[in-house]
């Protein structure tokens, strides 16, 4: 399946660029291969593992299940674009101190989903965290320290102790 590449205009992390994309190219393929935004990972290419999770127009989506062409008028955010913001900083700090990652391959998608959760629900309990992150698979940590980290990040944000 090799349709010709055409120029697609994508707005990623606040800046607009023209990238070549075939009609069947997913957003994941384009972000990684054309734009060198490799934080989003390919773990299954079927939308199950969650390692490709990014944000499109304020919703978390699977980049591997989104056609790049369909994202032309959307505002796309990847981990690379979110790392300077307070909620993400709080999460990163909490993940680091709580051992909430090991190999790190699931981590970008995990952070995107956790960040989205905290924006919707600033004080999630363990049950809410587990429900919100159930679409992000991790094979290394056994999940416990991730839940702890998200709760710690939420508390830090609530107390406004994290400054960008």
């Amino acid at each position: 399946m090799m349709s010709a590449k055409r120029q697609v205009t994508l707005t990623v992390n606040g800046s607009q660029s023209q990238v070549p994309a075939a009609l069947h190219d997913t957003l994941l393929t384009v972000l990684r291969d054309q734009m060198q935004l490799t934080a989003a990972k390919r773990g299954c290419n079927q939308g199950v593992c969650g390692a490709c999770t990014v944000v499109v127009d304020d919703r978390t989506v699977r980049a591997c299940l989104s056609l790049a062409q369909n994202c032309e008028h959307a505002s796309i955010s990847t981990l690379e674009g979110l790392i300077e913001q307070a909620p993400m900083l709080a999460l990163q700090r909490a993940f680091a101190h709580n051992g909430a990652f090991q190999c790190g391959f699931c981590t970008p998608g995990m952070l995107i989903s956790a960040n989205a959760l905290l924006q919707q629900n600033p004080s999630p309990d363990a049950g809410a965290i587990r429900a919100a992150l159930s679409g992000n698979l991790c094979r290394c940590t056994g999940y416990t320290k991730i839940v702890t980290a998200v709760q710690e990040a939420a508390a830090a944000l609530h107390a406004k102790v994290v400054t960008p």
Partner: protein
Amino acid sequence: MLQGLYHPNTVDEAIALLAQDPQARPMAGGASLVAMLNAGVIEPAALVSLASIEEIKGISVMPDGRIRIGAFTRHRETAEYALPLGAAAAVRQAASLIANVTVRNMGTIGGAIAFADPGLDYPPALVASGAEVEIASPFARRVVPAREFFVDWYLTALEPGELVVAVVLPRPGEGAQGVYIKHARVAGDYATASVAACRLGDGSVSVAVGACGPIPIANDAANTLLSADRSGAAITEAGALLERQADPLDDVRGSAEYRRQLIPRLLLRAIRSLEATEGEKP
């Protein structure tokens, strides 16, 4: 070889594009479709994206009190719909159990039911609650009861070139409620088997079984029985009626035999769950 990706703004435009190119496929949320594209399972010549059609988005209450869910409504929106749904609360519950938050941000009810994967969560809930499916064709709109919409494995009442425009839920009746019981190996998996049980506005009970055959299983005699009697014996008998209609698969989620065993057991859980809602606000 994918050569075209269209973005019509109205249902009629979309229908026209599909009529023009019989090789073109409609695309809603895209989750299932792009997964199949990635896996090389399908190779459509063109895709007609329904993402720009305002008419088919959102959930609204119709003048007669029925509830219209536009085909392009994401599972998440349906799952979070806050107003009373009566028996169709089963549909809301089904939406909330699909996959995970992120997939629910992408998938749509129209795309899901048009695909008609027998493991889907909507079909038994739609059948049990008495929902209808609004279909657009080149010439007219028509409405098909959910029970007649699902025809066979991955086959619906849609003719080639037709589109699901909306799912219409009945007016929430006084005291009506619905539950959806899903049994799956892990959270986010397709159902191994499922049961939707509804108490309709007139007080009768309507149930349907999912993931145990090509289409949801509903049985009028079972409904009549359960409407009058919800004792253990009645549930066993109703379960047997439903089980007899089942045509389950042997697959990695379970053997056909196991699914048959599950039908009366999940029915029991669904009925007891439904009973627990008596007196609750719809």
